[in-house]
C-alpha cells in the first residue's frame, strides 16, 4: 500500500534547488518541459511582468504568435486544410529564433503585399466594369436623343420613374451641341434621393436617365456584392454643371468620362474590354500565387506554432528563476517526485550536453512547507481521480480514495440504476467510446458536453456493466422480468377458487412455494404481482442500509492507515476505536438483526416464528435506543428475536454511549497531560540554565504555558466538533444511504409507466394496423427511454452516487485540503494553447 508510485497514496515529493549555467539554462528547461515532471516555484513573485529578465524574448514570441495567427486566419479563409501530422517538434535553440522571426516576417509581408495588390486590382476591375456598363447603356440614351421614339413603348424598358422630366423635344436637336452631360454609376438604393436632390437643386433644369446594372458588382473593400445603376445627366451651362458634379460627389456616385461621338464610344468600349480581359488574367494569377503561398505555409504552420509556444513557455519559466550574479547562472526552486529524481538528472545532463557547458547541479532541500499532491494516473484511473479531486485534492501523502472509487462508484450507481436493458445501452455507449478512443480524441471539439462524456468513458462503461448485473439481480429488463430458471412460486389453485378477482400465494404452502428461492435474483413472479412494491421496498431498504453501513465502515477502517503512516497512535486509541465501536454497536448490530430475521422467521413452520410473529427491525432498533423496558413474551409470539436480546441491546447501547465522551475527552486530556509534563521538564531545564540566560527562559516557559492553554481550548473545540459531526453524522449518513432504495424505486416505476402507457398501446392493438402502430410507437418509446431513463435518471443517479462518496464515505477519513501538483510540461501547455486558439 505504500509502494512508490502507487495510486493508494500520493507520491513523495522533494523540494530541490537547481543551479543552471546561463548558456545551458534554456536547453535544460526545454528538456525538463519535455519530461513534464517538475513544478517550478516563482522566485520573483513581487516583480512586475514588464520588469522580468526575459521580457523582450517573451515579447518577440508574442509577435511571432500574432504573425502565425494572421497566417492561420488567411489559410482558414481560403479553406485550405491544415495538416496535423501529430509530430512534436522540439523547442528550437535561441539562435534559431531569429531565423523563425525572419521567416515569419517575410511570409507576413508577402501575404500583405499580395492582398493589397489583389485589392488594387479588384478596384481597377470594378472601375472598368462600371465604365463598360456606362458605355453600353449611354449608347441607348444617346440614340434616343438622336431619334426620339414614341415615348410609351421604348421607355419602360429602362426606367420606371415618373419624375423624369423630358426637356428634349423634336425641335431641340440642334441645341445638343450646347448641352453637357455627366455619366456615372451610383448605388441603386440611392437613386430616388439622388433624383429628388437633382430636381430641387437644379430647379428641374436637368435631365436624368438611368438604367440598372443587372449583375451585382463586388465592392473591393468589403468584398460583398452590391447592385448599382448607370445614370447620365444632361444639363446646359457651367453653373448647372458644377452643381450636378457636387451632387454626384455628395451621393458618392463615381463619374466617368464618356465621349460624345458614337465612334469614340465604340473604340473606348473595345479598349475597355481588352483591358478587362487582361485584368482578369492578372487577378487570377494573383489569387493563384496567394493560394500557393498559403498552401506551402499550411504544411508547416502547426509545427511553427508549437515551436513558438514552447519557446514562450520556456522564457516564462526562466523568468521565475533567480539570477546568481556570482557564478553567472540561474537558480531555480522546484518540486520533483522523489521517484523521478533520476529522470530529472538525466534530462539536465541532456540539456547541458546540448549546449556544451558545465553540468547543472541539483540539490535537495529540506522544508517545513507542505508539498503538492501528486497522483500518478493512467488514462483509466485519471477519470476517477478527477472525480475525487473535484471535491478536494488530497493532503500530502494521505490515503487516496480513488482506487476504491473505481469499483464502488459504478456499483452504487448500479444499485440505483438497476435495469438490464438500460444497462446494455449505457455499456454499449461507453464501449464504443473506449473502442474508438484514438480517433475520437484526435478530433478536437469545443462541445463541452461531448468532452465531459468522452472524458468519463471508462466510468460510463463500468456503470453500464454493473447496471447489467444489478438489472439481472433485480430481474428488470425494461420493466419486464426474465424467467430463466423457473419461478419458485406456483399458483396452484383449482378452477372454482379462480372466480375471486385477487388471489394471494401462501409461502407456507408447499404447493405454492417451492421452499427454496429463485437461484439468481428476484423471482419473476413478483414482477406481475399486485403487491410487488411491498416486497421490493422491504428488500431494497435492507440492502441500502447494509451496503451503506459497510461502505462507512470501510471508510472508518481506512483512517487507520492514515494514523499509522503519520505516526499518530493517540488518534488510533482516542478516535478510531471509539468511532468503530459506536458504528458497530449500533449499525452493525442492526445488520445482524436483518440477517437473523431472514433466517429465523418463515412461514409453514413453528408458529412462534411465523410471519405474523416477525417483529419489525426498525421498531426494535428505535426501542433499543429509547431504552424501552423489558416486555414479556405473548402466548405465541415473543417480542424478542433471540434469547438474551434485551440484555445484549442494553449492553451495546451503553458501550455506544460511552464512546461519545471517549471521543470527546480522551485526546484533549492526554494532550494536556503531555504538555504539562513537557512544561515541567522545560522549567526544570530552564532552572539549571538560569545563570546563563536570565529571566528570558522562564518568560519563554511561561509564554509556552499560556500558549498551551490557548491550544487546549482550540483542541477541545476541534475535538467537540469532530465528535458531534461523527455521532450525528453516523445516524444521518446511514439514513442517507436510503437514497439507493428511493432512486431504484423511481427508476423501476418510470420504466414500468413507459411500458404500460406507451409501448403497450401498440402491442395490444391487433391486426395489421397494430403492426404499423407498434412501429411508430416504438420510436416514441425508444426516444423516451433514452432521454428520460438513461440520460436523466443516469445523471441523477450519478449525482447521488457522487454525493454518497464525497460526503458519507470520505468524511470518515479524508482531509482533502491539499493542492495539486502542476508540472511544467509542454503537453499540457500545448493543449491549453490549442484550446484557447480558436477563440482568438
Amino acid at each position: 500500500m505504500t509502494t512508490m508510485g502507487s495510486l493508494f497514496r500520493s507520491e513523495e515529493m522533494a523540494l530541490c534547488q537547481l543551479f543552471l549555467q546561463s548558456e545551458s539554462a534554456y536547453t535544460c528547461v526545454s528538456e525538463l518541459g519535455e519530461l513534464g515532471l517538475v513544478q517550478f516555484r516563482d522566485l520573483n513573485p513581487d516583480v512586475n511582468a514588464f520588469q522580468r529578465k526575459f521580457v523582450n524574448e517573451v515579447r518577440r514570441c508574442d509577435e511571432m504568435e500574432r504573425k502565425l495567427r494572421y497566417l492561420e486566419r488567411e489559410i482558414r479563409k481560403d479553406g485550405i486544410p491544415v495538416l496535423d501530422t501529430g509530430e512534436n517538434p522540439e523547442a528550437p535553440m535561441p539562435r534559431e529564433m531569429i531565423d523563425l522571426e525572419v521567416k515569419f516576417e517575410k511570409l507576413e509581408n508577402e501575404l500583405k503585399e499580395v492582398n493589397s495588390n489583389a485589392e488594387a486590382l479588384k478596384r481597377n476591375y470594378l472601375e472598368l466594369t462600371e465604365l463598360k456598363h456606362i458605355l453600353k447603356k449611354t449608347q441607348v440614351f444617346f440614340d434616343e436623343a438622336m431619334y426620339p421614339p414614341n415615348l410609351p413603348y421604348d421607355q419602360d424598358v429602362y426606367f420606371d420613374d415618373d419624375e423624369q422630366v423630358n426637356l428634349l423635344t423634336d425641335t431641340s436637336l440642334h441645341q445638343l451641341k450646347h448641352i453637357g452631360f455627366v455619366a456615372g454609376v451610383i448605388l441603386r438604393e440611392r437613386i430616388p434621393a439622388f433624383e429628388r436632390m437633382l430636381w430641387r437643386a437644379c430647379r428641374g433644369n436637368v435631365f436624368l436617365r438611368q438604367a440598372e446594372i443587372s449583375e451585382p458588382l463586388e465592392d473591393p473593400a468589403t468584398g460583398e456584392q452590391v447592385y448599382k445603376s448607370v445614370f447620365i445627366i444632361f444639363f446646359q451651362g457651367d453653373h448647372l454643371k458644377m452643381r450636378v458634379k457636387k451632387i454626384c460627389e455628395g451621393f458618392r456616385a463615381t463619374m466617368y468620362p464618356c465621349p460624345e461621338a458614337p465612334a469614340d464610344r465604340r473604340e473606348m468600349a473595345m479598349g475597355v474590354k481588352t483591358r478587362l480581359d487582361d485584368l482578369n488574367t492578372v487577378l487570377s494569377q494573383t489569387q493563384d500565387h496567394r493560394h500557393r503561398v498559403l498552401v506551402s505555409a499550411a504544411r508547416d504552420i502547426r509545427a511553427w506554432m508549437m515551436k513558438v509556444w514552447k519557446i514562450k513557455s520556456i522564457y516564462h519559466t526562466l523568468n521565475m528563476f533567480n539570477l546568481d550574479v556570482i557564478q553567472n547562472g540561474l537558480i531555480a526552486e522546484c518540486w520533483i517526485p522523489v521517484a523521478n529524481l533520476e529522470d530529472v538528472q538525466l534530462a539536465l545532463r541532456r540539456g547541458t550536453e546540448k549546449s556544451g557547458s558545465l553540468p547543472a547541479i541539483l540539490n535537495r532541500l529540506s522544508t517545513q512547507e507542505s508539498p503538492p499532491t501528486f497522483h500518478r494516473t493512467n488514462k483509466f484511473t485519471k477519470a476517477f481521480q478527477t472525480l475525487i479531486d473535484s471535491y478536494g485534492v488530497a493532503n500530502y501523502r494521505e490515503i487516496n480514495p480513488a482506487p476504491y472509487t473505481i469499483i464502488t462508484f459504478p456499483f452504487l450507481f448500479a444499485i440505483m440504476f438497476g435495469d438490464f436493458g438500460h444497462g446494455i445501452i449505457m455499456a454499449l455507449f461507453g464501449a464504443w467510446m473506449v473502442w474508438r478512443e484514438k480517433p475520437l480524441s484526435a478530433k478536437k471539439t469545443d462541445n463541452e458536453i461531448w468532452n465531459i462524456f468522452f472524458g468519463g468513458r471508462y466510468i460510463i462503461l463500468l456503470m453500464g456493466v454493473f447496471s447489467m448485473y444489478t438489472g439481472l439481480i433485480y430481474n428488470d429488463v425494461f420493466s419486464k422480468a426474465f424467467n430463466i430458471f423457473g419461478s419458485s412460486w406456483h399458483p396452484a389453485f383449482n378452477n372454482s377458487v379462480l372466480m375471486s378477482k385477487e388471489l394471494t400465494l401462501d409461502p407456507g404452502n408447499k404447493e405454492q412455494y417451492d421452499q427454496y428461492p429463485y437461484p439468481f435474483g428476484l423471482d419473476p413472479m413478483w414482477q406481475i404481482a399486485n403487491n410487488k412494491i411491498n416486497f421490493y421496498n422491504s428488500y431494497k431498504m435492507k440492502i441500502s442500509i447494509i451496503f451503506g453501513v459497510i461502505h462507512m465502515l470501510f471508510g472508518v477502517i481506512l483512517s487507520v492507515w492514515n494514523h499509522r503512516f503519520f505516526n499518530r497512535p493517540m488518534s488510533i486509541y482516542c478516535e478510531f476505536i471509539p468511532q468503530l465501536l459506536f458504528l458497530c454497536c449500533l449499525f452493525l448490530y442492526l445488520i445482524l438483526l436483518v440477517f437473523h430475521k431472514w433466517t429465523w422467521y418463515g412461514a409453514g413452520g413453528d408458529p412462534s416464528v411465523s410471519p405474523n410473529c416477525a417483529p419489525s427491525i426498525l421498531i426494535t432498533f428505535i426501542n433499543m435506543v429509547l431504552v424501552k423496558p423489558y416486555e414479556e413474551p405473548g402466548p405465541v409470539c415473543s417480542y424478542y428475536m433471540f434469547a438474551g436480546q434485551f440484555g445484549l441491546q442494553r449492553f451495546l447501547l451503553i458501550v455506544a454511549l460511552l464512546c461519545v465522551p471517549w471521543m470527546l475527552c480522551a485526546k484533549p486530556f492526554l494532550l494536556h497531560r503531555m504538555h504539562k509534563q513537557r512544561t515541567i521538564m522545560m522549567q526544570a531545564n530552564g532552572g539549571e540554565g538560569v545563570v546563563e540566560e536570565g529571566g528570558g527562559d522562564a518568560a519563554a516557559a511561561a509564554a509556552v504555558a499560556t500558549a498551551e492553554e490557548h491550544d487546549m481550548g482550540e483542541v477541545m473545540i476541534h475535538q467537540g466538533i469532530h465528535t458531534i459531526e461523527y455521532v450525528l453524522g453516523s445516524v444521518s449518513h446511514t439514513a442517507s444511504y436510503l437514497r439507493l432504495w428511493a432512486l431504484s424505486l423511481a427508476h423501476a416505476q418510470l420504466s414500468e409507466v413507459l411500458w404500460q402507457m406507451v409501448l403497450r398501446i401498440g402491442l395490444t392493438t391487433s391486426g395489421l394496423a397494430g403492426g404499423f402502430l407498434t412501429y411508430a410507437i416504438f420510436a416514441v418509446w425508444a426516444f423516451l427511454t433514452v432521454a428520460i431513463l438513461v440520460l436523466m435518471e443516469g445523471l441523477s443517479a450519478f449525482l447521488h452516487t457522487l454525493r454518497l462518496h464525497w460526503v458519507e464515505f470520505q468524511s470518515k477519513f479524508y482531509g482533502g485540503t491539499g493542492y495539486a501538483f502542476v508540472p511544467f510540461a509542454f503537453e499540457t501547455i500545448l493543449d491549453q494553447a490549442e484550446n484557447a486558439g480558436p477563440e482568438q
Partner: protein
Amino acid sequence: MGADAVAICVVTGFWAIVAIVLPFILGRGPNKGVIQVMLVITGFSCWLFWLLCYMHQMNPLIGPQLHNTTVLAIQYLWDGSVTIDDFTTVAGESTTIPTLKI
C-alpha cells in the same frame, strides 16, 4: 432454512474465484495494487448483492398477490396445469369467448 445448495455453491464459488484467485493471476505490472483492489471489491460486493437477494427470498413472509387472469395465464404458460381442453367456447355478441370449465 429454505436454501438450495447448488445455487449457493455455484454463485459463491464464482465470486470467490474473482475475489481470491484472480488477483494473484491478473495482478501484474505497474498497476498490480489497483487491479487487485478492483477485483476484490468487485467480487465481494457482487457476491454480497446476490446473497442479500437470495436470503431475502429464502423464507418469505408474504406471497405475491395476483389477478385471477394472471393466475390463469401462468397456469397455462408456465406451469402447464391448465390446457386448452379445460376451456369451452361460449357464443358471445360478435365473437366466441373461451370460458373455463368449472
